[in-house]
């Protein structure tokens, strides 16, 4: 894409202004997105982005610039702007030679998206849509989306690193609406991975549509969830969104480094019940949030965050690691070159326990069973979170009984972790998009079925 010697000169330019670290992130990406509404392909759009981010550090200050004019003269000017904004003492930089890094294994892909006829992508949407429509006559609308992207990145820095990665990702989502004339309810399902179009060889696209429709129809016939504090059993898979939001985000160095996280200065301390262990792992082959390297050029890896309730590690990017005095651990990520990277999750899960899921239900006299979670958010500073339950049921005398809708779970993340008292053995991951300081990125969440002894459930008052 760009000659290595050009990258060397751009880095040297910023170093000359006294930067003590300089990094370049070059990206060239082709993406496609499609949307089918009620069986009609309404929109197909594709395009290419290409640009470079130039980041310089001086002590505890970071300057970022990006541009998509890749002329060397313009790049040198951008490097100059970065250098000047650092306000360091200009120096004469030494010789810089970039050396190719080839550690780790790239995530395999076989069928590059541009070689696939767009009609084959439309066919996936059609299968999913028709499966949802055919599930029940109560299904009034179905929206399904398809996306793929082929991202090539080149990363170089003043420590001599030169590395590259190619990340192919694709995702299929389906949203079904059920209505009975006066009421509407929606159901959602998706699948995706870091792979080429061959990913869909292993996906039952019909089942995705049916699952979205099943949830919508089931919730249409549900009562409103009762309000109040109660035990909640959260099912596996997307249930992990709670850990992601309530505990994963506060473990990111972005808030830990400035002491703004509820988990600042807590390494080695008990932050959860003993049955809770959790990891973030960006190296899982072909998982939705995976890559060979992160967006700072470090190899992705399995980071043990919590072991038997004890806090073991944070998610650390290079800049915040510098402030904390610890090494970055392969989780510097960004949406694209228009964002500076920061510490982010990739595939984050609570590890399996010993119970079988049915045992946990049977051990619960009265409570809420959150079979499918919707999205949510958290304030890393106070730990306050909120989540919507997409598909819920009451648990009465150890059995799952009537469906309930409109439930919201609220609480404080650091408190909830101590209240997880049973963890099952059915770990599963699910796809999501995670939004934060460095943009929106693909991330897997996951957990086994587990029980929280009590959470405030927001519902309606009967």
């Amino acid at each position, binding site marked *: 894409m760009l000659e290595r010697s050009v990258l060397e000169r751009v880095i040297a330019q910023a170093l000359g202004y006294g930067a003590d670290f300089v990094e370049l992130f070059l990206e060239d990406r082709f993406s496609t997105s499609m949307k089918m509404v009620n069986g009609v392909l309404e929109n197909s759009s*594709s395009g290419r*982005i290409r*640009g470079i981010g130039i980041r310089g550090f001086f002590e505890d200050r970071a300057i*970022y610039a990006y541009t*998509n004019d890749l002329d060397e003269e313009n790049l040198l000017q951008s490097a100059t702007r970065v250098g000047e904004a650092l306000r360091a003492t200009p120096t004469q930089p030494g010789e810089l030679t970039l050396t190719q890094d080839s550690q780790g294994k790239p995530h395999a892909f076989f069928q590059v998206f541009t070689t696939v006829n767009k009609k084959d992508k439309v066919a996936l949407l059609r299968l999913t849509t028709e499966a949802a429509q055919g599930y029940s006559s109560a299904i009034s609308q179905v929206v399904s989306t398809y996306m793929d992207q082929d991202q090539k990145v080149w990363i170089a820095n003043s420590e001599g690193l030169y590395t590259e990665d190619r990340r192919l990702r694709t995702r299929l989502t389906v949203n079904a609406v059920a209505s009975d004339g006066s009421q509407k309810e929606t159901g959602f399902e998706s699948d995706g991975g870091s792979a080429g179009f061959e990913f869909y060889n292993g996906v039952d696209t019909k089942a995705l549509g049916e699952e979205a429709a099943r949830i919508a129809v089931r919730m249409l016939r549900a009562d409103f969830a009762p309000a109040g504090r109660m035990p909640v059993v959260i099912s596996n898979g997307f249930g992990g969104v709670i850990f992601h939001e309530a505990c994963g985000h506060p473990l990111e160095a972005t*808030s830990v480094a400035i002491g703004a996280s509820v988990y600042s200065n807590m390494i080695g301390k008990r932050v959860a019940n003993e049955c809770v262990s959790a990891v973030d792992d960006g190296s899982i082959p072909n998982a939705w949030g995976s890559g060979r390297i992160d967006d700072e050029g470090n190899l992705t890896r399995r980071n043990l965050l919590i072991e038997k309730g004890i806090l073991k590690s944070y998610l650390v990017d290079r800049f915040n690691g510098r402030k904390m005095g610890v090494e970055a651990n392969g989780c510097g990520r960004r949406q694209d070159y228009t964002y500076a990277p920061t510490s982010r999750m990739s595939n984050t899960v609570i590890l399996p326990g010993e119970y079988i899921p049915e045992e946990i239900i049977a051990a619960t006299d009265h409570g809420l069973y959150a079979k499918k979670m919707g999205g949510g958010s958290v304030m890393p*500073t106070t730990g306050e979170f909120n989540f919507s339950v997409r598909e819920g049921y009451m648990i009465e005398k150890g059995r799952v009984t009537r469906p309930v809708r409109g439930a919201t779970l609220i609480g404080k993340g650091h408190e909830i972790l101590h209240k997880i008292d049973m963890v099952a053995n059915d770990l599963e991951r699910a796809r999501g998009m995670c939004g934060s300081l460095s943009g929106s990125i693909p991330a897997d969440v996951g957990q086994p079925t587990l029980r929280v002894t009590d959470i405030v459930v927001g519902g309606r008052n009967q």
Partner: protein
Amino acid sequence: MNYHEFRTKVFEHATQAGLQQFELFAMDSDEFEVMVHGGKVNQYKDAQSMGASLKVIRDGKTGFSYTEVFDASQAEFLVKDALENLQVNESTDIESLYEGPAEYENVSPYANEFQQLDASEKIEQALRMEKAALAQDPRIQMVPFCVYTHFSSRTYIDDSTGRQLFFHSGGGLGYIQALAQSGEKKKDGFHYWMGKNPSGLNPEELGKVAAQKAIQSLEAHSVGSGKYRVILQNEVFASFLTLFVSMLSAESVQKGFSLLQGKLGQQVLSPVLTIDDDPFFPGSMFNCPFDSQAVPTRKKSIVERGTLKTFLHSLKTAQKDGVSPTGNGFRSGYRGTESIHPVNLVVRGGEFDPEGLQQQLGDGLLITDTQGMHSGADPVSGKFSVGASGFRVKDGKILHPVEQITIAGNLLELLSSVEHVGTDGKFGFVFSYGLHAPSVLLPQLDVAGDAD
């Protein structure tokens, strides 16, 4: 090659491909951001990017393709790729280029007001914001976020009719979060300012208010579950209105995703509510003379005393309904697809100032913040169940701050139950449009809490 040469190449290829209707939509954007922490610059961003999106139309169908690479081979690929997208498009809606009158309002463009300040002045402003928050109260433990940012976009629309449009929009934002701590209790407070002219930003005021908000909620606790009389403070009411906006899109209506389908001309909201779309709202950085489809924007009444007067239209939806386009077909950028939204949604102010509204409330809750609107509210069904915080009010007076509650209901029921509207209209924003909303009083809302 430069953009001008690139455009010529693209148009040549499009013509060669036998296309008669096509349009190139380009944006040249810049962005500046400084984040301070602990009296020092922490992060700083200074950036520029440009991209263009080609729309091709044939037999009423469209195809899109975008690029940030401007060279000869990309010009050729752009046309080929847009045509491929057109070929899989199955929509029976008729797409076209705008052919109506080209009379555009004279909207004052962004004049680089923020760029004229030196970077060091902007850093100074951010530092003053942080300092003011920390100085406000010893319980302010830190300022996790303190940001000064500005951005601008030059939009170019060129199409096969020979039309050439240009507009420059932009503005800035000051944003601060203060964290208060007392014993084990932690609370944060946010405050922001946005505008087209940096002289409107008062750093001391921003810091002070964020700190006050954090301090005021320190002693918060939950309330018992039940039905409460409620005031939704202006910013909270604005966030509920974003759900209403998605119901106003004629696209949602036509595809059966809006509860407002078939309700045109009917009383859908409380008679105390009057809502306009005003593309020329004083001071708004979203003001613009045309939408992303070259249709002139215009001021219109959406809801008048509770009666739904119009949906918001793009060219395509207007054609389908047999009405005039309303100038609401927008693109968030060249990478995004078209979506329908207002320029500035403006709710007309009512009769009570905040204290008066509180008197009218008597006993109930003043809701000052919600959490999880993006996940806990569904614009299709109108149902919401979201986290909230605020104050318990008794006899018109604030009793104590409230946290860890949820509020639940249905949006249209909420909007049709509004009893009174405040005078405290506040301008804010959601992604790509402006929102000016006052506080409102509701006779009843479902609250779930955790106290006896």
